[in-house]
């Protein structure tokens, strides 16, 4: 007749004892609820109280859905929390399509997808999601930097270092040291030689002293840098993102530019980089080392560089008349109802190449499901068709303006299936050496603060980013 359930806690509580009469049959359910009060000292359920953690836990998950690493910055959260993520993963079909922010009854899951791995963070409180995503990318970057790649095998091979790194990077949800220069002084990256030495001598891979850069006003640079050859090289890379429609008209076009630096200079060099045409740059983001005021007033980049490789600045050029489109594409892809076949004919030619050669030209087409096979002839390069992924890849190589490459032939289609409604888009890859397509040019690079004469160099390259031609 009577049934009840309850749980009791030896805590200072507010409690609610309620008997609950369901119906006239006098069957009773007694429910006892125990709620936490104002005091924060008790062992109430961990999710109840405001938690100080920003990122509570991190799970690394491979493409098969196995969790192969977990790190908790506070109490241990059960792996079962990932089930919500797996559910979303299932629903998304492709791993790229998993929504980056998921809500569960007690937590939020914020994830990124990098190198076929999911970095899944569990958070409990209002926290800027961009903060978390940026941090996760920084973790992935650090792994890449330390181990040369960011993959499951390399991470499991270096579990202890990974764990030490994670602990060093985040303290109670506050990022602690995320600059690779600083981290490398605290935790040395693995290499075969040191491993051997460490094993023989009992040496350690943890720095014994506080990194100098950690607290100066230039946290990105370590002190006491010495090189026999002092050199500073800069790569200006521009990627063209464009959408070109059927008729060859540019729908949208923009340039994502980046200046990557490899600086190996002794001491505390202070560099200034100036451009021939700085007016091009109105949408920029800088490495923290760049003095923003100098840029605002004089349009020069003035900075004390970090040691080694780093991204000096990225920029974005969206005004369409500044974006040259280096190639044109003539294409026709048709599917015929009768005979269940299709025809494909693609020709590529140079458009605005500023007199340079287009290299590494490649066309990728994601074909509709119904296309079973492709029987084509290429006047230049090779093509492959993967009938499981439906990807047609035509690797052309160098573009010869005298003899334009052409790919044509027939497509065999599944019979009895209606014609595909969608038109496949063409994705173009290409590379142009010695050219920044926006016309950006570095005019000089000066060094102050040190007496030696460094080797300097600037290299330009233009690539296709997300360059799509619609059919």
């Amino acid at each position, binding site marked *: 007749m009577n049934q009840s359930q309850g749980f009791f806690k030896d805590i200072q509580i507010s409690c609610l004892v309620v008997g609950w009469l369901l119906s006239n049959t006098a069957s009773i359910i007694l429910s006892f609820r125990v709620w936490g009060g104002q005091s924060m000292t008790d062992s109430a359920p961990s999710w109840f109280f405001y938690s100080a953690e920003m990122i509570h836990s991190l799970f690394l998950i491979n493409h098969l859905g196995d969790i192969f690493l977990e790190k908790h910055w506070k109490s241990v959260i059960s792996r079962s929390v990932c089930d919500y993520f797996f559910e979303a993963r299932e629903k998304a079909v492709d791993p790229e399509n998993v*929504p980056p922010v998921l809500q569960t009854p007690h937590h939020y899951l914020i994830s*990124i997808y990098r190198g076929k791995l999911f970095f899944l963070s569990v958070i409990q*409180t209002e926290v800027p999601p961009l903060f978390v995503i940026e941090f996760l990318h920084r973790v992935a970057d650090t792994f890449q930097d330390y181990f040369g790649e960011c993959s499951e095998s390399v991470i499991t091979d270096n579990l202890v270092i990974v764990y030490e790194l994670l602990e060093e990077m985040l303290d109670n949800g506050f990022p602690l040291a995320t600059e690779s220069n600083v981290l490398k002084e605290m935790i040395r990256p693995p290499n075969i030689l040191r491993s051997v030495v460490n094993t023989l001598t009992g040496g350690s891979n943890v720095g014994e002293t506080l990194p100098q850069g950690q607290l100066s006003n230039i946290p990105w640079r370590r002190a006491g840098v010495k090189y026999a050859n002092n050199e500073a090289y800069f790569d200006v890379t521009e990627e063209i993102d464009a959408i070109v429609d059927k008729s060859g008209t540019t729908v949208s076009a923009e340039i994502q530019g980046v200046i990557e630096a490899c600086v190996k200079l002794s001491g505390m060099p202070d560099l200034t980089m100036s451009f021939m045409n700085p007016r091009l740059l109105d949408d920029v983001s800088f490495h923290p080392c760049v003095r923003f005021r100098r840029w605002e007033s004089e349009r020069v980049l003035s900075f004390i560089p970090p040691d080694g490789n780093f991204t000096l600045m990225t920029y974005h050029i969206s005004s369409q008349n500044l974006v040259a489109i280096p190639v044109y594409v003539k294409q026709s892809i048709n599917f015929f109802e009768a005979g269940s076949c299709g025809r494909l004919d693609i020709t590529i030619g140079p458009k605005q190449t500023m007199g340079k050669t287009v290299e590494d030209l490649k066309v990728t087409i994601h074909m509709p499901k119904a296309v079973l096979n492709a029987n084509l002839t290429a006047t230049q390069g090779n093509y492959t068709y993967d009938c499981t992924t439906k990807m047609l890849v035509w690797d052309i190589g160098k573009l010869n303006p005298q003899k334009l490459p052409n790919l044509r032939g027939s497509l065999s289609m599944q019979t009895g299936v209606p014609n595909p409604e969608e038109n496949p888009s063409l994705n173009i890859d290409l590379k142009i050496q010695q050219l920044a397509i926006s016309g950006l040019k570095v005019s000089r690079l000066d060094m102050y603060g040190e007496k030696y004469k460094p080797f300097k160099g600037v290299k330009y390259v233009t690539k296709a980013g997300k360059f799509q031609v619609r059919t």
Partner: protein
Amino acid sequence: MQEWANQLCENRQFGSKMTDSKYFTTTKKGEIFELKAELNSDKKEKKKEAVKKVIASMTVGKDVSALFPDVVNCMQTDNLELKKLVYLYLMNYAKSQPDMAIMAVNTFVKDCEDPNPLIRALAVRTMGCIRVDKITEYLCEPLRKCLKDEDPYVRKTAAVCVAKLHDINAQLVEDQGFLDTLKDLISDSNPMVVANAVAALSEIAESHPNSNLMDLNPQTINKLLTALNECTEWGQIFILDCLANYTPRDDRESQSICERVTPRLSHANSAVVLSAVKVLMKFMEMLPKDLDYYGTLLKKLAPPLVTLLSAEPELQYVALRNINLIVQRRPEILKHEMKVFFVKYNDPIYVKLEKLDIMIRLASQANIAQVLAELKEYATEVDVDFVRKAVRAIGRCAIKVEQSAERCVSTLLDLIQTKVNYVVQEAIVVIKDIFRKYPNKYESVIATLCENLDSLDEPEARAAMIWIVGEYAERIDNADELLESFLEGFHDESTQVQLQLLTAIVKLFLKKPTETQELVQQVLSLATQDSDNPDLRDRGYIYWRLLSTDPVAAKEVVLAEKPLISEETDLIEPTLLEELICHIGTLASVYHKPPSAFVEGSRGVQHKRLPGSTESPDTTSAAAVSDAPPAVIPSQGDLLGDLLNLDLTPPTTTGPPPPASSENNLILPAIGAGFGAPPAAMPASFSAPVSGGLDDLFDLGGGVGMPMGAYSAPKTVWLPAMKAKGLEISGTFARRSGVIQMEMTLTNKAMSVMTDFAIQFNRNSFGLAPAGPLQVLTPLNPNQSIEVTLPLNTVGPVMKMEPLNNLQVAVKNNIDVFYFSCQYPISMLFVEDGKMERQVFLATWKDIPNDNEAQFQIKDCHLNAASNKLQGSNIFTIAKRTVDGQDMLYQSMKLTNGIWVLAEMRVQAGNPVYTVSTAACAYS
């Protein structure tokens, strides 16, 4: 797990010998034992390797807590790496082994004095992460020293540690004066220390919203702005988020802050950029619009937002959700940037959908041609969800930009020609909306639509098509045939279609009464007699009666002119938008919900509002702070749609009209009708913990001069004005002379007079219901409050609620209907005749099975005072006796629904802790 590890190990062993995977080679048998032996080895190197193995096991989720004492033994070492590894282990397992953890305290304290700052910082940091009370006690002294350490690295670590400690024991932090030290650190010479102090303080402030910790004044703001330039990117985020909470005194201060924040827009870290955008968006409100600087600022905001879209897709997603808010607030910022939102076919689907949303928001006469061309392109893509949304977007463009409507319609017709099933269906749904927006303009396409009648298999599309046929019945020659064909499978249709079909046929009848009498009778009988759906039956009966009593009135009702729909339907409501703008970059901005709505545990959320421009400084009314926010049922729009499902909305409605798709030509009695079904979808997180009930009841501490009579909690805000178009309701419950009363204060914070108040309860656990109407006889003027006491009875319908004492309430006034829920103290339900005979008590106590019993401990109360106070709340003391030096008090109480609760209170002499055992039984 072990198998998995072994396997992993086999796979890896071939390749690299010098890697950590070697730590997995031990077999399951005796693994812990072997590790134990190694940990206790004399050789340092062996020890370190063993600890590494332990850590490796921990990372993959294995339980190695059994090794706790052995690992702790390795802690005293000169080897920094070993020390770090042991600390790592301690942080993970100290909580589960508190008694063992105390062994580590000495080493911690010693390490906090180490000459190496790295070790000092490491020790204080680790101690803060060990959430064990005994350790915490020892933390205070080292922490105090570290906060004043000469080395900034130690100070900055210590600053974070204060936040950690506060999370474990807030009182301790306050008592020890750490908060003041932390505030002093804002003036530290090192920017990193400042940033961490700010972060720690904001975090503490967030958990104690009323503590007024972050006392922001021009001086501190200046310090923060200086530190902003010099600290790390993460510190910049904390400082910017903190700045966003400040309200500048005037437009000049606002401008100078903006000027100093704008350089952050060029930061490589997107979180810094978005936080800077938040500060600027907020402070911009205070700038006069004719100021030159205002225009400059607007221009400066566009490029960084565009740049965010070239980042990784996850970042893009968050950025897009925020841009969605920004373009609603200030469309001018991005009006020329339409192209960056064009969709690339390899964008992840979540990015595609967001871009599409923003494209529509930015669509204007100037760019509509381009947008339409894009949308048409998208409608031929592969992904079904995306295609559907693209087709819908075309419809939304037509409604938004009148000049484009014709082009949109022809684009939709083109798409219908493709005969792709889901495209056709979506197109028909949006064409219905276009008809509603531009009546009598595009009806020429109806013929084309009718051709596709057979291919429609989704309820929404079928319903839309039926609506079109009914609405334009007079122009479609064979309308009766078409509708009749739907009628054949009436019972297999979804409710949506059934309702629509019913309405459409009635419309047809009113337009062509002669030919369709039979048809209308058929549908009315199908709806009223053969259907078990109450909505359908009700609507059928109403039509039936209308038609039979007064066909003219029926015509007026059914064929009345419908309100036009507008694009505003999908805009976020302005007050919510203002609040969300203040939360740019947070989870709230991603979910487009106010933070109070979904963040668990953030008690007492402060509703933020944009500062007014200097011309109208009404910022004082902004601070609607409440300690325990009552549960307010969200998204009125949806609920209105669900509950009332009104098409012909009351004319005075100021809020968004119900979604266009809930197109039902039916008037229901305004409020009562909705209560047939309980409000659906009450998010679980809404039941904010309210400490009421026995907590207050048993608050027996100060036993002197207690008033006799029932305890009644102070009033709390149940319905904040923000959620209810200016009506604020606060209230409490009381039991006075045997009557349960709901005491409410209604405050009108809106600009107009409120009248016609009414109240209803949803079904609830104890059948609480109003015993009379809400007595608000005079109209409520703006800024006026009125006290209302509503007597309640317990004879209403019963439904179990979660939590049990939850009560969902609807209040209506001349403006709208508002919903909220509150929790009543259970003591209200204790009836006056709850005193049980001693003998009966004894017998009953024995009869109640043990598992019906619950025990609690209460500290610091006085027995005699307690019994008096309890009696005031209808908890009756039956007997008192002393056994083995323990005082026992026996009590009984009875609930309104006849359940008896019996309690035994036990107090040990000299021990102020009371144990209460309660048991319950029922007499049917």
